[in-house]
């Protein structure tokens, strides 16, 4: 698609956006892959439509205020990226656009306060944990509250577990075969501390020692995808400093959203002086399932104990794992490695569950429609267990599976593996 974006936004981010818009041939192959197009059936809520809207705004042909409602409805799930034969880097485009446009947005002071509170609380596990506890007390009041406040309360799990900070160093059990650095994530430390505990146990058991570098923080994805670019840059640079250079075989994340965020650093810093450092960093980032799958393929992954009974596990592809990082085979292979486990494919598996970072806080109606659809699709496979690799999906799916009155447990892929190693599956 022709564009004059490079003239409108000079510099690295203008280049990122112009390149993406150039690549789109408006063929429409992305339409069926887009959750909002699937729900709403109109062009401006599709990837192809949003690309046109962003182009028009950047070139001055359309006001930001006119385009914003449709751009805000994008989940950033990147289902369209998988579907696109022309190779349009849509994820980079919408992220860069949100960073460029946010400072120009006119928002109500309530809306601004809510966004800033989310961005303060989300990356701070202690604060998040406290907020979650307060929220639990407020839960019974939810029906009386305005929608903006009700959405986050609806999502809180029934119980908020105590924080379990990860140790800075976890030694390998037995012979040491590798050394990795782990990004421990933000929200998941507060909502599901067992994800990290299970991760450390599985790695140690396989002879991998784990460093949790000091000074690491939020990956920056939440800030970046909501347009808070300055805040995101601060977080990105803090992580570059914390993890680089570091004597690690890999930098691991067990949250799809965070892993995708880390892999995005080169695009975020395009044209900046630390771009090369970001490339070196991102080249070492892997999802935990990718890393363990490497061990499995090398014949070096310890065999787990068999499940106590035949188990049907419905595996949910997190968008930021499947679409953003292209990781689909690894988690399935790890689950199948457990004797007795069958992996089930979920109908409409490529469609986002509606969690999408802060989306369920900002677009609660669409998020709920997608959450219900995802829960129904998953439960249609009659699973014994549901597994996924992302805290956002985990929370969303658990919440909608429970609302559908199903008792099926929802676990992180690593928790399933950990339970198998411990003979508890």
């Amino acid at each position, binding site marked *: 698609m*022709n564009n004059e974006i490079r003239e409108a936004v000079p510099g690295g981010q203008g280049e990122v956006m112009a390149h993406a818009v150039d690549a789109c*041939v408006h*063929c429409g192959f992305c339409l069926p892959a887009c959750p909002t197009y699937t729900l709403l059936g109109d*062009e401006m809520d599709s990837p192809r439509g949003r690309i046109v809207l962003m182009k*028009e705004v950047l070139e001055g042909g359309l006001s930001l205020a*006119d385009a914003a409602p449709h751009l805000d409805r994008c989940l950033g799930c990147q289902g369209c990226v998988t579907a696109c034969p022309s190779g349009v880097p849509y994820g980079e485009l919408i992220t860069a656009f949100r960073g460029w446009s946010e400072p120009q947005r006119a928002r109500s002071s309530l809306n601004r306060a809510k966004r800033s509170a989310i961005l303060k609380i989300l990356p701070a596990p202690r604060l998040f944990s406290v907020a979650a506890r307060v929220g639990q007390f407020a839960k019974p009041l939810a029906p009386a509250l305005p929608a903006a406040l009700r959405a986050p309360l609806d999502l809180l799990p029934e119980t908020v577990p105590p924080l379990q900070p990860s140790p800075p160093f976890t030694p390998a059990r037995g012979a040491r075969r590798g050394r990795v650095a782990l990004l421990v994530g933000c929200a998941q430390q507060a909502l599901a501390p067992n994800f990290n505990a299970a991760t450390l146990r599985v790695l140690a058991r396989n002879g991998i020692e784990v460093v949790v570098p000091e000074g690491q923080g939020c990956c920056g994805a939440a800030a970046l995808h909501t347009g808070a670019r300055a805040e995101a840059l601060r977080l990105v640079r803090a992580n570059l400093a914390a993890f680089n250079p570091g004597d690690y075989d890999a930098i691991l994340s067990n949250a799809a959203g965070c892993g995708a965020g880390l892999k995005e650093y080169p695009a975020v810093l395009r044209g900046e002086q630390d771009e090369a450092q970001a490339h070196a960093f991102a080249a070492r980032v892997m999802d935990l399932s990718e890393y363990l799958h490497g061990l499995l393929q090398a014949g070096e992954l310890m065999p787990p104990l068999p499940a106590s009974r035949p188990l049907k596990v419905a595996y949910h592809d997190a968008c930021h794992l499947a679409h953003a990082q292209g990781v689909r085979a690894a988690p399935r292979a790890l689950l199948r490695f457990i004797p007795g486990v069958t992996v089930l494919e979920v109908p409409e598996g490529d469609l986002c569950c509606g969690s999408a970072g802060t989306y369920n806080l900002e677009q609660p109606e669409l998020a709920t429609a997608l959450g219900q659809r995802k829960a129904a699709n998953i439960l249609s496979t009659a699973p014994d267990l549901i597994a996924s690799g992302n805290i956002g999906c985990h929370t969303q799916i658990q919440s909608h599976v429970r609302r559908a009155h199903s008792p099926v447990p929802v676990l992180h892929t690593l928790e399933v593996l950990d339970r198998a190693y411990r003979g508890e599956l």
Partner: protein
Amino acid sequence: MSSDLLRRLAPRQVLTSLAERRNYRYDAIQFGETPLAVVLPETTADVVAAVQVARAAGVPIVGRGAASGLSGGAAPAVPGLVISFTRMTALRVDPSRREARAQAGVVTLAVSDAARPHGLIYPPDPASLRTSTIGGNLAENAGGPMCFKYGVTGDYVRALQVVDAAGEVHELTRDAYDLAGLLIGSEGTLGLMTEATLRLVPPPRFTRTLMAHFPEVGACAEAVSQAIAAGAVPSKLEFMDRACTNAVEDYLGLGLPRAAEAVLLIDTDGDDLPTVEEERALVEAACAAAGGTVRRAGSDAEAAALWQARRSVSPALGRIRPQRMNEDIAVPRSALPDVVREIRALGDASPFTVVQFGHIGDGNLHPNILFDPRQDDSHAVHDLAHRIALVALRHGGVLSGEHGIGSMKRDFMRDAVDPVTLGALWTVKRALDPAGGLNPGKVLPEEVNG
């Protein structure tokens, strides 16, 4: 007009803001004029209301499906009302009659998906079948790889519901005057197709998939001619040249032969396995005789991957140049080797990248001129497209196999159709659309002398 539309339709069905309207001005190849308003009907009655309002306001109408078309058919040539059918998605399968009744906005693949549990399929399979709608398929009379053996969209239509230019609803069948046949492929210039009764068939019990690659483009066409002359009736016979193979390989990384000048994909199918295998042997022999290297798909998954490769050709070409002029010629099979070689030579002599692919079994080729509008001269592109069209016509071919004429090939119609016949086409157009309000600027070139 907007207030009239809002009086007759629900607010969610009428789009009036600039951000909304801007998104209804393109198809998969061209940008047109921003519409004055967009209507998203849910029922035929909604379509009637929209047509009546537009007619009263003297505003032209463009029908639109998923806008994955490749001839500019859904891109408005003048500002008007766009009626987008994407929310008309009701679909009902009647297995006892082997029929499906589909509203215009039903996605093509959804028909087969709904029919399959009843042991039936809907054969027309345009490359865009996951995206494109039945209404759009009807408007362009879409084909697809299966069309060599099984035919195109129009061959599967038993009945059509059409809203005419005056807003009247017609139920058309295929008897007496075949008005349904006239409407199919008319690109929204004669009426708006709102529902169709589609014929379903049982899928063949056996399918065999082959890939052959060739060191020269013409040799590939010779293999096709020979295989068919020998008596093979493959269900699919598709070709892509080297640039296509490489664009797709960049996208999917399937291990296609990057160095080959042409790749042929072939399915033979049927309910009698020995016949299916015999046809495959005939095709293999013809490919080998023409200097090709043959590979059989080892599994269903491998066959599915090869077909996904073919489906992705068209949009994957965007990786080479941002824009393209898309031809859709169909020529007699006996002329295929000459035609592909002549087009190849025209491309080589031009400053542009010209690629070729298509349903070669039907003689339906898609030469594409890839260009960058910022650097390349659009007149030179148009001129080359014209010369390619003339190659087809010189060999007894036609301008469109399945994508329609739209606005892209409208100028070439004078070369393809004699003035008397063109006059007859105009008479038909005026009979059904006296005010000229349906998709103006498409298909028929303006008459020279009134």
